[in-house]
């Protein structure tokens, strides 16, 4: 039998010590650059993009991307504790309505409404969701899915908080730049904050709960308390995004509880790659501009998100970010078999 010469690709991890999780031995400035580049690049890009776009339509898109990135980050944080939320709209809506309500009825200035909405919204969501964390499986997903939809119904039928019309003429941001840069800074802080937090001892416990909650309980840790904390942190980020959006739009309506605010961050996080936070951000910054570009599709956009989600799950379940990360840390060569 004749042996055909065959080749295969060999993938090799780049041999730098600094890639170990725990030991840091930086050998050279080249290694430093190797590590710093992927971390600095997104920050620079985030701060420069609004400048390039200015106050144009695409400048607004950057703001929306940031909002959805925050929601995706908040989803990813809960997912890393094993809580799969299908209701980022709950956090978003809670934050929106708390900010809108304080601003509309009590005439609080923006400087007060946004922090109040962040904490208040987070508190409301946590109280609503904490009973469910005792249950395993998909109960949590179901409850998170159903609550925002019910709230939207409630506001519509009871005509509370402005009913179908929503709360109008809220305080706007003084200018576009302030809004965009608050959002950008928030994304950067949350992104790197979460990445840091999840590798701290606290984050280790949270990840432990996801992997094997029995071991964590045997270790004397009240998993429900930690899950509640995770929900609170995550809900605070989501509510903050809602409050920002409310003031940006100068309007809050029941659409704040709409499925859009659930499905787009979800798609962003899944497409980008869950579990890394960077993936969620990256995914949002891909999907939001994409969906704006496809505005012509109108109602089909939601369907498109669904298709993207399914495709991402089936084709690249690890997500774009993990794929890039892997490629960055490896080099390939072709070897003869």
């Amino acid at each position, binding site marked *: 039998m004749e042996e055909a010469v065959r080749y295969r690709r060999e993938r090799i991890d780049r041999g730098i010590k600094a890639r170990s999780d725990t030991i840091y031995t930086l050998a050279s400035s080249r290694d430093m650059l190797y590590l710093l580049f992927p971390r600095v690049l997104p920050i620079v890009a985030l701060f420069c993009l609004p400048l390039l776009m200015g106050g144009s339509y695409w400048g607004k898109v950057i703001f929306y991307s940031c909002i959805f990135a925050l929601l995706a980050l908040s989803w990813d944080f809960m997912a890393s504790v094993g809580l799969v939320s299908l209701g980022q709209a709950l956090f978003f809506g809670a934050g929106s309505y708390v900010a809108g309500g304080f601003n509309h009825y009590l005439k609080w200035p923006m400087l007060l409404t946004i922090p109040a909405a962040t904490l208040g919204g987070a508190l409301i969501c946590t109280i*609503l969701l904490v009973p469910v964390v005792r249950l395993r499986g998909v109960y949590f997903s179901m409850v998170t899915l159903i609550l925002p939809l*019910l709230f939207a119904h409630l506001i519509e039928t009871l005509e509370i908080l402005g009913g179908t019309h929503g709360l109008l003429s809220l305080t706007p941001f003084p200018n576009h730049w302030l809004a965009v840069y608050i959002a950008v800074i928030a994304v950067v802080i949350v992104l790197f904050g979460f990445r840091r937090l999840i590798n701290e001892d606290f984050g280790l416990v949270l990840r432990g709960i996801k992997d094997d909650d*029995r071991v964590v309980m045997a270790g004397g840790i009240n998993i429900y308390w930690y899950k509640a904390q995770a929900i609170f942190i995550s809900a605070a980020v989501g509510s903050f995004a809602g409050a920002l959006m409310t003031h940006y739009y100068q309007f809050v309506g029941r659409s704040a509880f709409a*499925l859009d605010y659930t499905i787009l961050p979800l798609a962003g996080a899944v497409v980008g790659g869950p579990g890394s936070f960077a993936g969620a951000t990256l995914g949002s910054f891909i999907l939001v501009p994409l969906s704006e570009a496809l505005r012509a599709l109108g*109602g089909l956009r939601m369907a498109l998100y*669904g*298709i993207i989600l*399914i495709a991402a799950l089936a084709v690249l*379940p690890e997500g774009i970010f993990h794929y890039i990360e892997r490629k960055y840390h490896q080099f390939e060569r072709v070897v003869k078999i």
Partner: protein
Amino acid sequence: MEILIYGITNSVTLALMAIGFSLTFGISGLANFAHGAFYLLGGILTWIFLNQLGVPYLFSALISILLVGLLGFLLYWGLMLRLRGLAINEVIATLAAAIVIIEVLRWLGFSGFTYVLPEFIKGSVKIGNVWLDYQRIFLVGIGVALIIFFYLFTHRTKVGLSFRAIAQNERTAISLGIDSDWTAALSLAFGSALAVVAGLAILPLGSIDTEVGYDILIYALAVGIVGGLESIPGIVLASFILGFCQIAVATFFRAQWQTVVTLGAIVIILAVKPSGIFGKYKELEERV
């Protein structure tokens, strides 16, 4: 009297909406968020067969039930099978499927007064001082029949028993020669078909609106959460509690308050007994 009759029909309606979802969940642990989408799709397919293609009503209905059942089967075989085991992905995939179906239907414009399914049996009867149309009686009949069928199916037949075996312990079931993927796919097919049956019983009472795709999901989930997802008595009881409360509230206060009942029930049940009235507390129990 009024409350009693409307309460019963409303409760059975809720039970009908929830039963397919619970069946699938109880068997394969799969939360089929596309339940509402299938309900809607079934209604619209029947309408197309009936009005565009001129197929007799009964046949249109049967074809739709089979088609959507097949779709459920394909959803499992084509998509869920690849994602099985990762809870996150399963949940997201069915929700995504639901959104694709509903939004495409919405885009195609299947909404409004043109899209009305005729009643199976015309006419109405007066019970006490309440006029009740035959369709509602038919609906109650279907509901009761389905619940009994569902119960007998899972407790008496071989397929049903193997379904329950999988629900209890998938690995053991596999080792006993039960093909878990096959049964799970079947369960999704059954659940989807039941969604269509429910749709065909309920939809003739009004016009088809794509929004019901989401509403049905809300109600199915609400009933499941209140009653405890895997339990048939729980579903029935929760349907009756929610159904009667809704009617009572609508009669004594205002019709709009019905949503409050649902939300209130969920919040209360979550605070008091998160696993639902008859739900098993699947928290920690570890067998040897």
